[in-house]
C-alpha cells in the first residue's frame, strides 16, 4: 500500500499548559493533533498519579503527525511553550497513509 514519510511528534506537557501548547501549534499553522491522557509517571520531580485528584493536575500527551518539512515549525512553536516547564518532546519517523491529509 502506498505510504509517505512523516514525523510523529509526542509532547508530554503539564495539563495546565495543554491549551497554551495547542493554541501555539495552531498559531504556527499546525492544524492536526491529538491529546491522550496520562495516568501518572515519574521523573526528576518524583512520582505522581492522577487517581483521586480534583484539579487540572498531571500531564497529557500531545501527538502530532506531520510532513517532515514542517517539523521545525512545530518544534519551535512547541518549544516556546515547553521551555520553562517540565515535559518531554520526542520525534519518531513514521510512514502514513493518505498523505494528502497532512
Amino acid at each position, binding site marked *: 500500500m502506498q505510504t509517505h514519510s512523516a514525523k510523529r511528534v509526542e509532547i508530554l506537557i503539564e495539563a495546565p499548559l495543554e491549551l497554551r501548547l495547542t493554541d501555539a501549534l495552531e498559531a504556527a499553522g499546525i492544524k492536526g493533533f491529538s491529546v491522550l491522557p496520562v495516568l501518572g509517571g515519574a521523573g526528576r*520531580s518524583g512520582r505522581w498519579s492522577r487517581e483521586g*485528584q480534583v*484539579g*487540572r493536575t498531571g500531564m497529557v500527551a500531545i501527538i502530532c503527525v506531520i510532513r517532515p518539512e514542517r517539523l521545525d515549525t512545530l518544534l519551535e512553536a512547541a518549544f516556546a511553550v515547553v521551555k*520553562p516547564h*517540565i515535559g518531554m518532546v520526542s520525534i519518531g519517523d513514521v510512514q502514513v497513509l493518505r498523505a494528502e491529509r497532512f
Partner: protein
Amino acid sequence: MGELLSLAGQNLLTPMILSFALGLFAAIARSELSVPEAAAKMMSIYLLFAIGFKGGVAVAGHGLDEHLIAAMLGGIALSFLIPLLAFGLLRAMTRLSPLDAAAVAAHYGSISIVTFVTASTVLSAQGIASEGYMVAVAAAMEAPAIVSAIWLAARSGGRTGQVQMDARLWHEILLNGSIVLLVGAFLIGAVTGEAGLARIDAFVVAPFQGVLCLFLLDMGIVAGRGLRTARKVISLGVLSFGIMMPILGATLGLGVALLIGLSAGGAALMMTLAASASYIAVPAAMRVALPAANPSISLTLALGITFPFNLTFGIPAYTAVAQALIGE
C-alpha cells in the same frame, strides 16, 4: 480548654473525619484503595454546587446583610496579605528557596473549599447560624493570594523564565472552575430561593454529609500518598509551618471578623478560610506562573498537614473561640 478538647474529640468521631483518617491510613499502609479521578471531580462539583446554592438560598431568605461588602473586602485583604506573612515565616523557619516559599505562600493565602464545607457542616450540626454570603467571600479569597505570591517571587529576583505571568493566566485564575461554579450556584440559589431549594433539597441537602465522607476519604488517600512520597521534602521547620500558619491565619481572620461585626458562625467561617490552604486552583496556577517551584512541597503541606489540622483541631477551636468572643 477541657471543653475545647471535648469539642475536638466530638468532632473527631464523626463519619467525615474518620473517613479522612481511613483514607490516610489506606495510603500510608500502601493499600491500593483509590477513588477514580472522574468520581473525585464529580464529587467536588457536587459539593461546590450544593454549598454555593445553599448560601444563595440563605441570602434570599435573610436579605443581604450590610456587612456583605465589608466581608468581601476583608476576605480579599486577607488573601492578599497572608502570603506576605507566610513568605516571611517560611524564609525564617525553613530552607525553602524564595521561589518555593512564594509558591507555598500562595496556597495559604488562598482557601480550601472543602475545609470551608466541613466547617459549615460542623456549624449547622451544632445549630450555629452563619451568614449565607460567606460562600461568596470564599470565592473572592481564591485569587488575590496568587498576585501577592507572584509579586514576591518576582521581587526575590526570579531569573528570566522563572515567573510566567500573562493575561491568559489572569483569565484562568479569575474564571477557574471552582470560582465560577461556587459563585454561579450562589446566584442560582439567591435567585430561586426557597422555591428552588424545595425542588432540589433531596439532592443538595439530604445526602450532602454522606458525599462529603467519600470525598474526604479520597482526600485522605491523596494526602497520605503525598506524605508518603514527600517525606524527604518535609523538614521539621516545614512541618511546624503547616501547623503555625493556620493558627496565625485564623487569628487574622478573627480580627477581620470582629472588625466587620460578623456573627459567631460567620467569624468561625472567616477564621477557617484564613486558616485553610488551597490544593486545587492555586497548584495549577503555580505550575503555569512559577514552573520552577517544586509542586510537591506546597501540596504536601496544604493537604497533608494543614488540611487535617484544620479538620480535626482547627475548626472546633475556631468555632469555640468565635463563640466565646462573639456569643450567639
